[in-house]
């Protein structure tokens, strides 16, 4: 079995959703189109469709998260699935039960899907390689590797505002080195045909081989966002950065913080995105975050529809093929 095939079942349907890398363009388009259909569910009076009735979805979070977990939970509930939230302090697993033992136990409870967030890169792949054949795995963020549902909801948001991907310039600004969000966005943007993807940040936060991902590297924000259609600001993980990677928040803001003045260098109709949660005054100033070009809250709303799409495509595939 080739590793990249792990995301598809033997009939070629999407079984796991672990990374956007290597997914065909059409799969990404299908996800966006399906999400478009689900986007009205939230504004209906009865906010539910019965697609995953009787299915049990486990949110398995080895790392803290409020927004991602909540939107996954809402997405699952709007698809009529039962949801189990398990938050695991990683230190307790390392002492006692192994990750695999925990999975076996959850499988024994007849669950159907694991939505996994874990601090180690590759954790979702590892789990997908070892789960029982009827279980689907969705990666809700693994280390610095991938956060593919975030990547897809960002594509959804971009498509809503820009319609086509073929003529866009997109700049991703901040800590590319440690960002699973950036990696997933880059793979998605490239696969959807965006001709120019830029990453912007200091050398300490951009891998030396970043261009191998298919991006243009900038170390100056003004140059990096000049004439772009989309500006994506990344969250600065302050705890991790300060010291050897960055001298101070103030200096970072002065160099890489998005202000109205710097944003004016982008195209006039450029949109500003951020995966949240925002550090106001560190990577972005409030007038921009709350300003007319910001689509940050839309991203959150869109996250539910996109996650519904991915859950229904992966978990609904057996019902579909049985019909």
């Amino acid at each position, binding site marked *: 079995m080739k*590793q990249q095939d792990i995301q598809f079942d033997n009939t070629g349907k999407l079984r796991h959703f672990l990374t956007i890398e290597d997914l065909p363009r059409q799969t990404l388009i299908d996800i966006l189109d399906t999400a478009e259909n689900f986007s009205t569910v939230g504004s209906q009076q009865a906010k539910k469709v019965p697609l995953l009735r009787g299915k049990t979805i486990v949110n398995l979070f080895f790392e803290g998260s409020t927004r991602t977990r909540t939107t996954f939970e809402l997405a699952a509930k709007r698809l009529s699935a039962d949801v189990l939230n398990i938050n695991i302090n990683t230190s307790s697993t390392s002492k006692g039960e192994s990750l*695999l033992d925990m999975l076996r136990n959850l499988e024994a409870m007849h669950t159907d899907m694991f939505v996994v967030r874990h601090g180690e*890169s*590759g954790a979702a*792949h*590892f789990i997908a390689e070892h789960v029982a054949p009827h279980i689907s795995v969705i990666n809700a963020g693994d280390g*610095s*590797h991938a956060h593919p549902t975030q990547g897809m909801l960002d594509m959804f948001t971009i498509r809503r505002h820009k319609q086509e991907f073929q003529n866009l310039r997109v700049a991703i600004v901040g800590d590319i080195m440690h960002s699973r969000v950036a990696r997933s966005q880059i793979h998605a943007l490239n696969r959807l045909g965006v001709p120019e993807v830029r990453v912007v940040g200091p050398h300490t936060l951009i891998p*030396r081989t970043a261009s191998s991902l298919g991006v243009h590297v900038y170390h100056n924000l003004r140059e990096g966002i000049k004439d772009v259609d989309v500006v994506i600001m990344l969250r600065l993980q302050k705890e991790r950065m300060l010291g050897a990677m960055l001298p101070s928040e103030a200096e970072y803001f002065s160099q890489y913080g998005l202000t109205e003045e710097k944003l004016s260098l982008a195209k006039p109709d450029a949109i500003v995105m951020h995966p949240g949660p925002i550090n106001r005054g560190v990577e972005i100033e409030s007038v921009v975050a709350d300003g007319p070009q910001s689509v940050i809250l839309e991203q959150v709303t869109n996250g539910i529809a996109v996650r519904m799409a991915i859950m229904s495509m992966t978990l609904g595939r057996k019902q579909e093929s049985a019909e």
Partner: protein
Amino acid sequence: MKIAISNGHVVDPRNQINGKKDIFIQDDKIIALDKAPEGFQADLIIDASNKIVSPGFVDLSARLREPGQEHKGTILSETRAAAASGVTSLCIPPDTSPVIDTPAVIELIHQRNEEAGFCRVYTMGALTMGLNGTHLSEMAHLKDAGCVGVSNVMNCINNPQVLRRAMEYAASVDLTIFLHPQDAGLANNGCAHEGVVSTRLGLAGIPEAAETQAVANFLMLVEQTGARIHFCRLTTSRAIHMISRAKYDGFDLTADVAAHQLHLTEMDIGYFNSQCHVQPPLRTQRDRDALRQAIADSQIEAICSDHQPHDVDAKLAPFAATEPGISALETLLPLSLRLVNDGLLTMMEMIDRLSTTPAEILGLRAGHLSINAKADITIFDPDKHWVLKPQNMLSDGHNTPFKNWEMKGSVVKTLCNGQVVYSNDK
């Protein structure tokens, strides 16, 4: 016991033998080549037709996991795997538990090995007590107890002053220091080469500079201290270049490479294949090609297995959380033969890198088939094809990235100290 090995193609780099010869063994020694001594009546005749007869392989680094981690391997299980791999002498690095920093641990290992008896086991002593990087070990005592060198393994000595003193002291007791050039600060707990794969997968990277900076550092101190040093497990093209340059400038240095580094690159990690989690990490194709060339040119003198058997659970976790290392004894010969088949090495050169030179580096009376030498002999079929199935491995560790690889070359018989310690007549 008298043994005759007949009709084999004998390859002995030390004595420049490369052709059909018979070997006659009495008790633990080779007593004649070519013609049997008068009145020699063999108790055992080994027909080595179409086989290569080589001095037994000498492995510069094999972890047997005893004492301390017997769930991964024991002296019995791993020396048996060594014998099956044609290895007749191997050296254990000091990072056992307890660390090899007292004669008692060395005695324990030798005692256990006498009971097992599949190959010769040598020990590398700790350069600092408990490998703590601050307090010099009792190197003279360690040497008296049988240590063939000293090393701090992958534990860095952060204080350059301690490193300098350790090197000076080792020089005064005439022990070679086996240095693992990887700066811990620059490696920064990384788990893969800092390059396109670590960037793609979001794995913490170990930059090339972690190795080159350490090599530079060590070279400066060699100049100061007069220590005799050996560089272990090189991985980068630039480090090879620096060491070649130092040799050209007159430094007396040697170096080795792990066999897997000659065949794998960072690309083999694919999507987080934990069997490719090794320390130091797999690097780029350019580095791998430079390592292969360096082995061909003798810039790197020895190939070792860097055997690190693991239990199954050690590799069952997300990549960075798995334990590094490969159970590598059983692939040492076939991976080295690939270099011969690729036209990079002659058979004689391969045996030199696997036996003669590593024996010299360790200061052993081994690695050649001279008359009166100990009868440590490996007989192998260089043309036998087989497919590596982890479940068939003799080592307790089945952790290998070479699963399902088609291998060529297989050991038929191994003699250690004049005894047949491994035989496979299939």
